[in-house]
């Protein structure tokens, strides 16, 4: 009953004209950046952070959330129509979706992707609403030791589930944690690693890092790449409605994808990307004899991953909203956005800002409804956008990033720092070092240090406290298990295979 009351409050907040408008704005913007390759939700949200200073917290977060799940819808459009995933989470959609488009079934593929995403979005919203409360009750028993261990597990989890070299990813986290140490020590008030530059004593702004690494770093990398041939199936999108047979084949995949995505979204490091890869692998295992083989245009290969990535995008809000621990880079930016608006992310948000908390959740359902309208009947508009050449697009990104960093504190220093991180971002790209773990480490660094030091103060310097407290020990053991599991040879080869788009 309480859940119903809470959701009622949420819809009350989400259905005001102002919030509807911001949800729509987020959804449109999300679709837009999802459609445009080379611009992801991380860079976009980073660009928009300065502009939320003038907004209230609730509409601001509603809009930013809309961008994230909107990008999941938009990303599939480009994956299906031009074989270029607009978002990394749509990489697997391109495999079968593009083949469907080549066979003249682009409409069916788009419709299944859209409807599957909508179903997953609805389920994901209900899951957030249902699971938030018990998690918050559990978090009430957390002391500094538990929080420290939780962050260790969150950070380790964020990299073991990702692709690429494990040691390098962990090193990137530590690098992020260290960059987070450039600040004024909260406990003693000592400025650290600031080289007597006054701007550095407040720490590096995470917007600066996010924009440098994700915004500019990606532009430079994109411009350095050779042009690839693009074949756009724009004229062939007709017959949007899938056939009866399509429906029958797709709905079990949608349900499976939603379930898998919901679970993987909650895990640290989870979210949309992992969910779509895992779902594609699962579909290939379960559907033994598809009418059209996988890789040749099987509708299951579109329905499953598209539902999974949207479900994962939704449920990845759970750890952020309930514990204040971001499971991926987008959520790290959401944490930053809350901090900008003066809200300390963590279990107290639900009690201290119930309108924000439940309003945000309800807005996700509303936003999903808007997205299905935006993406299916209006598909033609988005397809037109695909014809905008990159040479018009990237100067616009440069302009928005520059203005965004300048307005952070009306100071050119942040702009120069962004230029430095653009350079660093390109170095990371060239050395195959993933920047996302670094951002997570950077966000969590100061919190981790504070909790570590408080836990050690409380235990009078006994490191055993992390293992003596059962919850904390459990979390640390879970983190260790994840690393060991990933390093086991059989799982290692499976993990490599799961991230290969075959």
């Amino acid at each position, binding site marked *: 009953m309480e859940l119903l009351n809470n959701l009622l409050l949420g819809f009350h907040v989400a259905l005001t004209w102002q919030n509807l408008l911001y949800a729509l704005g987020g959804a449109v913007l999300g679709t837009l950046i999802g459609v445009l390759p080379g611009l992801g939700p991380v860079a976009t949200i980073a660009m928009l952070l300065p502009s939320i200073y003038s907004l209230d917290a609730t509409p601001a977060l509603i809009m930013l959330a809309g961008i994230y799940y909107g990008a999941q819808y938009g990303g599939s459009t480009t994956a299906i129509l031009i074989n270029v995933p607009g978002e990394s989470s749509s990489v697997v959609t391109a495999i079968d979706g593009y083949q469907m488009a080549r066979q003249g079934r682009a409409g069916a593929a788009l419709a299944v992707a859209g409807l599957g995403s909508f179903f997953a979005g609805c389920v994901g919203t209900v899951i957030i609403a249902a699971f938030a409360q018990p998690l918050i009750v559990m978090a009430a028993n957390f002391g500094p030791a538990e929080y420290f261990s939780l962050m260790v597990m969150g950070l380790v989890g964020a990299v073991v589930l990702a692709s690429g070299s494990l040691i390098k990813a962990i090193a990137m986290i530590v690098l992020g944690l260290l960059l987070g140490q450039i600040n004024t020590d909260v406990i003693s008030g000592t400025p*650290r690693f600031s080289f007597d530059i006054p701007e550095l004593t407040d720490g590096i702004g995470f917007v600066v890092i996010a924009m440098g690494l994700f915004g500019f770093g990606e532009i430079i990398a994109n411009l350095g790449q050779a042009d690839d041939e693009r074949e756009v199936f724009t004229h062939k999108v007709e017959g949007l409605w899938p056939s009866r047979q399509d429906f029958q084949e797709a709905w079990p995949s949608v349900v499976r994808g939603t379930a898998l995505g919901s679970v993987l979204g909650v895990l640290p490091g989870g979210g949309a990307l992992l969910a779509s890869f895992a779902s594609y692998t699962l579909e290939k295992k379960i559907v033994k004899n598809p009418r059209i083989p996988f890789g040749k245009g099987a509708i299951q290969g579109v329905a499953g991953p598209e539902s999974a990535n949207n479900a994962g995008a939704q449920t990845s809000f759970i750890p952020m909203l309930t514990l204040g621990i971001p499971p991926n880079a987008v959520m790290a930016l959401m944490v930053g956005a809350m901090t900008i608006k003066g809200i300390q992310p963590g279990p107290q948000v639900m009690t201290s800002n119930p309108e924000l908390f439940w309003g945000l959740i309800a807005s996700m359902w509303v936003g999903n409804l808007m997205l299905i309208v935006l993406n299916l009947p209006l598909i033609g508009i988005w397809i037109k956008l695909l014809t905008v050449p990159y040479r018009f697009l990237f100067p616009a990104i440069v302009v928005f990033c520059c203005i965004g960093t300048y307005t952070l504190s009306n100071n050119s220093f942040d702009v120069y720092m962004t230029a430095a991180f653009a350079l660093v971002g390109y170095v990371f790209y060239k050395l195959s070092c993933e920047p996302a773990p670094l951002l997570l480490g950077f966000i969590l660094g100061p919190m981790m240090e504070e909790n570590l030091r408080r836990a*050690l103060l409380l235990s009078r310097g006994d490191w055993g406290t992390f293992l003596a407290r059962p919850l904390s020990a459990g979390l640390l053991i879970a983190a260790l298990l994840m690393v060991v599991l990933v390093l086991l040879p059989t799982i290692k080869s499976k993990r490599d295979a799961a991230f290969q788009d075959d």
Partner: protein
Amino acid sequence: MKIKSQRDFWSGLMFVIVGVVFALGSTNYSFGSSAQPGPAYFPFWLGVLLTVLGGMVLFKALSIESEGGDPIGAIAWKPLLILVVAIVFFGLALPRLGLALTLPILVTLSALAGKEFHWKDALLNSVVLTVGSWAIFVWGLKLVIPVWPVMFGG
């Protein structure tokens, strides 16, 4: 000793150097004890950890064979340098020249980083983006951004 993976070798080296710099740098601050950890406590151990991790990456780069030596590949100097210069220019120019002059130069400069460059496109883009940015940021969001050049060094 032969480098078996270029990318891993250089990233390992980067981690080791940054780790050592932070660990050494933190010795300037009070370390405290584990019962009363000081400002240097956390960064020192993180620096040590990063150095160890970097060492592991380095060791792997020198011992385990990788496909084709995992080369770093060509560096896109042109977009890299142009964009970094463009951003720094923006930081220098905006407080002095204002949005109206800085943005067209920024747009044209960054357009030079692309593969194709047409004066007509760059000019069109400059006008659209300058007017658009003014409308969004100055008029719409009411952010405090200098619009016109500052005269007389004011």
